[in-house]
């Protein structure tokens, strides 16, 4: 059992290359908690914008008739990875974890695995 603040701190401390992280309310596009970021990465703006990313993907899956759930979404930039992990048990209410990683320092497989662990801790 963890609270939002410790979960976000753990995200930044344990995941190599983590630049910033946010817990986002999908229904409103609001960040319920943020850590890291800074002037180069406004996490509240990222939270609202990435809500649109998730919504677009959900709509696309409906158009394709895919009866499946999104576990995570990866966006690869030149210098960063952005990872969006949808929290499961809250289905229609919808919250997601958003993680920005420095591409040069991050291990993507490890980061996905650790983010999954942090998500599980938040919910149990």
């Amino acid at each position: 059992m963890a609270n939002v603040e410790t979960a976000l701190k753990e995200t930044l401390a344990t995941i190599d290359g983590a630049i910033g992280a946010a817990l986002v309310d999908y229904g409103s596009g609001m960040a319920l908690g943020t850590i890291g970021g800074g002037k180069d990465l406004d996490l509240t703006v990222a939270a609202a914008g990435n809500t649109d990313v998730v919504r677009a993907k959900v709509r696309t899956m409906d158009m394709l008739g895919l009866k499946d759930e999104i576990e995570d979404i990866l966006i690869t930039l030149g210098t960063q990875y952005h990872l969006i992990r949808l929290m499961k048990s809250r289905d229609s209410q919808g919250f997601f974890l958003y993680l920005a990683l420095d591409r040069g320092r991050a291990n993507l497989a490890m980061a996905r695995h650790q983010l999954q662990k942090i998500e599980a801790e938040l919910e149990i």
Partner: protein
Amino acid sequence: MTPAQAGGLTAVAISPLLTRLAAERATGALLRDRGTLFLEDGRIVHAESPATPGLDVLLTTGGGLAPERWREAVDRAGARRQVARFLVDSGGLAGGELEICHLAAIFDAAFFALSPGTGPSRFRRGATHWIGSVRSVPAAAVERETRRRRELLDAVWPYPLLDTSPVIPRAAAPGQTVTARQRTLLARADGVRTPADLAWVLGRPAFHTLLDVRRLAAAGLVETPHAPVLAPVETPLPDWITQTQSPDVALLRRLRDALEASL
């Protein structure tokens, strides 16, 4: 309201009283027409509004908490003002889940409590809420988010009348997709329920429902109500206006002279 007017309004402080109470690090309840904000040392620790489902509905209807667990917590810990802690300690709810839902509920209720045009605000110093302490958020963050939400609604589909009118679904266009989340909402829109009623039925925060309904209306899946246009009142003008004749210049001159003479 035109976008220009909306932009002008948002520049105004959301609530000068709230700003002052936050600066004073006040503790108590800020009561407004459409809701109440609870402050502790100037930070917002809880909010509720009759316009949106409370934490109980979000956790039971919208979440997985059994209603009996909630009632038990209120009965046994309400008097001590530690309902939140009781829910977590008794194993009814994970700490993280409670915190996330509570934060969502604060911002949701605050959006309605701080809505413009509501009457005078009162502050009851020292008042606390029985939910107990969960998390607190700075008043400035709540004001900023409230402003962002107002702008977001208008950016999506600028028809505020949708927020209070019954939601009337429309048939999807051929080939148009409706997502599972939208279908859940549309299935409960019976042409009578307003977005707030739907929020209660779905166990979702009311702002989320307003936003969903505006998006559905923008996509043509919900009727957009239009303000009844007031028919221009046709008052027949008297004949002496409509049947104009050329002014009697000579008469007007005599009148002016007479007035000047009496000065």
